[in-house]
């Protein structure tokens, strides 16, 4: 039986991705900070699917965490063939309203875990071809959203990383995908914020976490590069990428002015 590792897999999009993998009979390794959340996720997944769920309670912002995970997997010689880098943080407070430490933490947590986990798990993935890597970015990575400055910048870096990695690993039969969802209401706070900023449009754009997870895994196995769940978000993301960046930024600016 094959194994899949989901970092940040105890809640939100990570958990949805883990469920979609469990439905496809993948055993899971979930990595997250909070041990209680991990146990909850483990019980839920093992009760509803015939899979084994391993949990690792680690803080991925620590430099050694990724190496520990790599060693843990290679010691047990697990047939790992899917790696999902979901760990990340966002929020309505960003650059200028956050302290320096919070800003740097957000930037680093959105970039480093994916980079170091991929680095340490690549030898194992290479042994279990065909393998898949799924990085989670956001639609904010397509054009700068100034009120989410650092979030947007780090997510753009994630998209760049995925594009380059996909090319670099082509010969190794490892397919790299990047999930770029629009608004996903994983927490009530996100729903409130989106509705305040985008109104009805935000409601139409939103996709449920379960659907995000299902679409993400479905298309990862189809070896798609960019994965944007939902019809409206796909259309919007195409527009965002085609229109000049100055114009898109200006639109975001006007939008935020309107809502105050």
């Amino acid at each position, binding site marked *: 039986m094959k194994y899949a590792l989901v970092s940040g897999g105890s809640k939100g999009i990570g958990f949805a991705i883990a469920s979609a993998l469990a439905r496809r009979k993948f055993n899971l390794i979930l990595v997250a900070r909070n041990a209680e959340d991990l146990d909850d996720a483990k019980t839920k997944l093992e009760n509803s699917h015939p899979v084994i769920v391993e949990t690792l309670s680690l803080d991925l912002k620590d430099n050694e965490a990724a190496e520990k995970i790599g060693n843990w997997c290679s010691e047990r010689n697990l047939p790992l063939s899917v790696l999902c880098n979901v760990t990340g943080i966002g929020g309505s407070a960003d*650059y200028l309203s956050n302290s320096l430490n919070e800003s740097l933490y957000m930037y680093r947590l959105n*970039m480093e875990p994916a980079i170091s986990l991929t680095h340490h798990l690549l030898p194992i993935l290479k042994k279990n071809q065909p393998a898949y890597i799924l990085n989670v970015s956001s639609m904010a990575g397509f054009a700068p959203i100034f*009120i989410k400055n650092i979030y947007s910048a*780090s997510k*753009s870096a994630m998209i*760049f990383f995925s594009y380059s990695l996909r090319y670099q690993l082509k010969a190794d039969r490892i397919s790299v995908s990047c999930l770029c969802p629009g608004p996903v209401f994983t927490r009530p706070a996100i729903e409130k914020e989106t509705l305040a900023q985008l109104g009805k449009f935000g409601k139409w754009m939103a996709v449920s976490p379960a659907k995000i997870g299902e679409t993400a895994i479905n298309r990862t196995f189809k070896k798609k590069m960019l994965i944007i769940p939902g019809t409206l978000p796909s259309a919007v993301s195409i527009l965002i990428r085609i229109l000049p960046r100055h114009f898109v930024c200006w639109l975001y600016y006007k939008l935020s002015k309107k809502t105050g």
Partner: protein
Amino acid sequence: MKAQPGSRKYRFHYDLHFLSVQHQHMKKISLLIAAFLFVMGVFAGPGGKDRPDTENSILVSREIIDTGRFKTKPISEKQTGADSAYALVAGGSKGIGFAIAEALAKRGYNLILIARHLDSLKAAKNELEYLYGIHVEIIPCDLSREESATDIAHWCIERNIHLKMLCNVAGFGGSRDYLTLPLDSLRYMINLNVGSAMALTLTLLPLLEKNAPSYILNVGSMAGFAPIPVKNLYSATKSAVVFFSYSLSYQLKEKNISVSVLCPGPVFTKPEIKEDTQKKLGWFGMQMAVPPEKVGEVAVRETLNGKLVIVPGTLSKLTSIIIRILPRKWIVSIYGKAGDKK
């Protein structure tokens, strides 16, 4: 937009064309002063008594005079009068950072240079003070460390520096990175290329706000417009810098602080870069290359004009537009194939 008049004021000192249009007498006087200082600079310079130059930096200075770059620099009285305005250049001892520092010095800015190595900082200080008669402060420190920005800001605020411009030039890159370099170097790259810019901007913002209208210049790269597989992380971090600058320009709009991002194509600041470009991009790459001095000059000029994205060189500008218009998939595979050339 108060940026324009501010910028013209600073351009006044070196722009002879501008002088010829509006100030007929000033031109003669400033030319006389310039010629006098030029002669003084050439003859009295190396033998001058209070010049703590090392042998090395004098040699560099002479080279610059010989290549004729000196002629654009008539030091007028006004220029030394603008002495209170400071610009901070992170990574200003060598390469593009030094070129930017020099372009600022030409406009009469006093400088605060930050880099890791004291030797190269001292050489830069001596050269710039000697050539442009400005005041240069140097702070050796590693900008990838989180405390650095706070320390620097503290240093500046303590001295109540009249900071008008912040240039985040410090960065790290190479011909290959992800899958080749060790993880520690990659972390260093992440922290230096983006983290340092975010940290310095945040900590120095109070000072810039106080001295508004002021300017922030971040250094991205053309690699920040589309992913380059062999320079995976370099490209990713530079894209983050570009995004950061776009967002920041909107965030600081109302505070009268103008934000720019410099996205040069190939710049041969080191022989390895020239070799690498020749190998991967061939003739086209060589045509695209812009000398560091020009990059610095264009960067400072356009920053003072309040331009957001700055791409020096006509061919680079054209290429950068095409890169941004074409689908990313195509660009990645074109870059990928070019990068695979051994």
